[in-house]
């Protein structure tokens, strides 16, 4: 446990921000490592709950950092965590997109983009694995996760309906 959670939040999340190429999902593994494993700010289950909350709420999923900040250090924590995760990647995106435009036809640009795709996919799969282990503590939990993934992959149902159904299943005491 750190003595200065605000400073830790600012430092860890601004680093996260720089690797948030693919949004909240790609930084999930690193976020989990920092918040649950390194600092012990919350349990894996609480982390999974906050992430679910951010997914269900309107707005970008990356706002999960506001929730984490809130849980760690109240309103100041939420403000610091949100600013830390937004500012560096905004500046980076702005700078890179200008350079990127200039080298539109360059072969190295296509190579860099091609190289980043498998990295993003790997991070997303790792994120799915980690958040599943954090969220599910029973076979029925894993079943809900698998069923949701199956429905999302095969239909166009809005995820909020699935969250609602899963909430009812939980309320019934089956998870």
């Amino acid at each position, binding site marked *: 446990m750190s003595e200065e959670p605000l400073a830790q939040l600012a430092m860890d999340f601004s680093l996260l921000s720089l690797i948030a190429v693919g949004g909240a999902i790609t930084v999930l593994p690193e976020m989990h490592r920092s918040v649950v494993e390194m600092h012990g700010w919350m349990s894996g289950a609480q982390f999974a709950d906050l992430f679910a909350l951010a997914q*269900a709420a309107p*707005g970008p999923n990356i706002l999960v950092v506001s929730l984490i900040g*809130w849980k760690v250090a109240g309103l100041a924590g*939420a403000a610091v965590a949100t600013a830390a995760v937004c500012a560096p990647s905004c500046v980076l995106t702005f700078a890179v997109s200008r350079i990127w435009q200039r080298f539109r036809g360059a072969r190295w640009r296509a190579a860099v983009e091609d190289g980043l795709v498998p990295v993003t996919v790997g991070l997303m799969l790792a*994120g799915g694995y980690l958040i*599943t282990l954090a969220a599910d503590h029973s076979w029925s939990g894993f079943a809900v*996760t698998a069923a949701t993934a199956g429905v999302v*992959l095969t239909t166009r149902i809005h995820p909020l309906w*699935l969250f609602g159904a899963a909430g009812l299943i939980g*309320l019934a005491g089956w998870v």
Partner: protein
Amino acid sequence: MTAPFFIILALGALYTQYGHLPAVSAPFRGVSAAAAGLVVAMGLKMAASRRLRSAMALSR
């Protein structure tokens, strides 16, 4: 992004306040499991995407 920020803070405050109550934590176990499924689905979708195959030059 200001409105989503405050909405999520309100939800977070409710969660910290009432999260320990069974009436809240029970449905949350289901919703968290579903949210995890959503992430898994997105990962699998990306893994099966043409973008990945072309990036790895498997279909060129």
